[in-house]
């Protein structure tokens, strides 16, 4: 009966989204009068989940699972859901969770709604609000199957602390054969990812060339931010494709999004609209981004950004 949440981790530590899916699961559990069970894979210390409303943690320890594998992970979550008799399974919107979700849906005969932004508005029929048309609209979607899978949009529900503690149980599910073998992973470990970042600093064609990206990086460093870019910037090879955000790139749902020299084309805005606060710096007061932003400076990035970086450095030093 309990709500099952899959709590993602990185190198044995929970990601922030793990705490968010627990908070979300707790909101549903309270509505229908049940508890939250979390499934964790290779996490050192799972006690933190109790602070967000989990009563039980199923912890899987297995070295072969150190590298993500969609089929294996889906198989584990499926067995946990079956063991717990869970009617609702909550996942995040990370690349990995989105990879495994449809496999899990088929395994559990469960309906799956991705990009969900709020707690269910109704339990019977189970109705969730999700984004559609790449953030240009929302749809209220009913999941009509007995078991339901909710993919929660990152940073949409937030963390909600709860008083309580979670018991931890070792869980040893059987691992399905996987036909996809990971040969190598190429990932900057010292940099926060666009998906997990609280702040994203993004540069557009207005920055003129790759040699000027120090401006973006210095500002990002001060803010502990991830760096991103508009599509033409990645198409021109100024920045790697993995930084391309927007409708055809990565979605951004950070607390703060700073756009430097980006015009604010509809396809760009669609992808970053879920960010809570948007700041734009652009020489052109007519740039469409000013209609989408919360704060803006009409000015030359080459003058404004170095100043902003210096002043933020001082601000951070004072408020540290």
């Amino acid at each position, binding site marked *: 009966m309990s709500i099952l949440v899959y709590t993602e981790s990185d190198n044995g530590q929970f990601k922030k989204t793990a705490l968010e899916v627990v908070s979300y699961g707790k909101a549903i559990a309270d509505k229908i009068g049940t508890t939250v069970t979390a499934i964790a894979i290779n996490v050192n210390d799972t006690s933190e989940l109790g602070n967000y409303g989990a009563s039980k943690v199923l912890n899987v320890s297995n070295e072969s699972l150190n590298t*993500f594998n*969609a089929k294996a992970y889906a198989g584990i979550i499926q067995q946990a859901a079956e063991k717990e008799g869970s009617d609702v399974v909550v996942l995040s919107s990370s*690349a990995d969770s*989105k*990879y495994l979700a*449809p*496999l899990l*849906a*088929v*395994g559990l005969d*469960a*309906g*799956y709604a991705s990009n969900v932004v709020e707690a269910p508005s109704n339990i019977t029929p189970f109705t969730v*609000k999700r*984004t*559609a048309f*790449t*953030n*240009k*609209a929302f*749809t*209220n*979607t009913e999941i*009509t*199957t007995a078991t339901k899978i909710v993919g929660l949009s990152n940073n949409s529900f937030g963390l909600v602390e709860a008083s309580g503690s979670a018991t931890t149980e070792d869980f040893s599910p059987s691992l399905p054969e996987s*036909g*996809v*073998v*990971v*040969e*190598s*992973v*190429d990932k900057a470990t010292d940099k*926060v990812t666009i*998906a997990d970042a*609280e*702040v994203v600093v993004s540069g557009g064609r207005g920055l003129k060339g790759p040699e000027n990206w120090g401006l973006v990086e210095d500002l990002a460093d001060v803010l502990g931010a991830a760096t991103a870019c508009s599509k033409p910037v990645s198409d021109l090879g100024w920045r790697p*494709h*993995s930084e391309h955000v927007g409708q*055809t790139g990565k979605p951004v749902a950070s*607390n*703060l999004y700073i756009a430097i020299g980006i015009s604010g084309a*509809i*396809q760009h805005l669609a992808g970053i*609209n879920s960010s*809570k*606060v948007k700041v*734009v710096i652009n020489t052109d007061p007519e740039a469409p981004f*000013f*209609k*989408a932003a*919360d*704060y*803006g*400076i009409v*000015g030359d990035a080459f*003058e404004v950004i170095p100043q*902003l970086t210096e002043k*933020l450095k001082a*601000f951070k030093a004072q408020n540290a």
Partner: protein
Amino acid sequence: MKFLLYLLCAHSKYFDFYNYLCFLLKLYSKKQENMKILVCISHVPDTTSKINFTEGNTKFDTNGVQFVINPNDEFGLTRAMWFKEKQGASVDVINVGGTETEPTLRKALAIGADAAIRVNTEAKDGFAVAKELAKVVTDGNYDLVIAGRESIDYNGGMVPGMLASMIDANFVTNCIHLEVEGNNAKAVREIDGGKESVSTTLPLVIGGQKGLVEESDLRIPNMRGIMMARKKPLTVLEPTTSTTETNSVSFEKPVPKGAVTLVDADNIDQLINLLHNEAKVI
């Protein structure tokens, strides 16, 4: 392999048998070369479309909306054309949808696909679409299915994974590079903060995106392609299921945003102050 066969057969009265086996071997490897690819084509509003709803916010308003091949699928289609040109693959395209999607399928034919299939039913949810695709992929013995990582209308991101699971094929999504040699595939998947190289085997389902080919590699149909597309087969199949698992009951538009607060370029302290005290994000 041939050499072994030769040893087996050469010095015996089975010399004809050796030739016969060689012939079979050839047939077998030829079959290997001719990979059968199915590219899933979602028919979606152009990225610049204004999104509106009708009938009490229960239906997407298609009035004045231009439909295109889903951008993620377009990258997959071009990658498939390379498999056709360089490795002799055959490329079919498929859409699950009503008659209104046929111009989009014809466009895919004009770009170079060999044949098109339309499953004649409204694409009600990801599960129903995956079910229809599973039937076509199984009946048609496709080796490789290239879909998009998500379509830009409902952004479900579930069709390729569900399809792979239903037909027990291997699955790689967010795919930014793909090579197939015989039965073996090498792919690169974009992950949060980087990328991952994987190896796998056919049958395989791909959730593709930009990177599979570059923007500059995308093809625009030319006159000859358009003429030829008219003569290529477009088969209409009737659906086999009407079951859905999710149901989109109503739509909402985002609440309009308040006006931007402009800060003078000489007054950056004010911006920091606003971000700290008003927006509370730093």
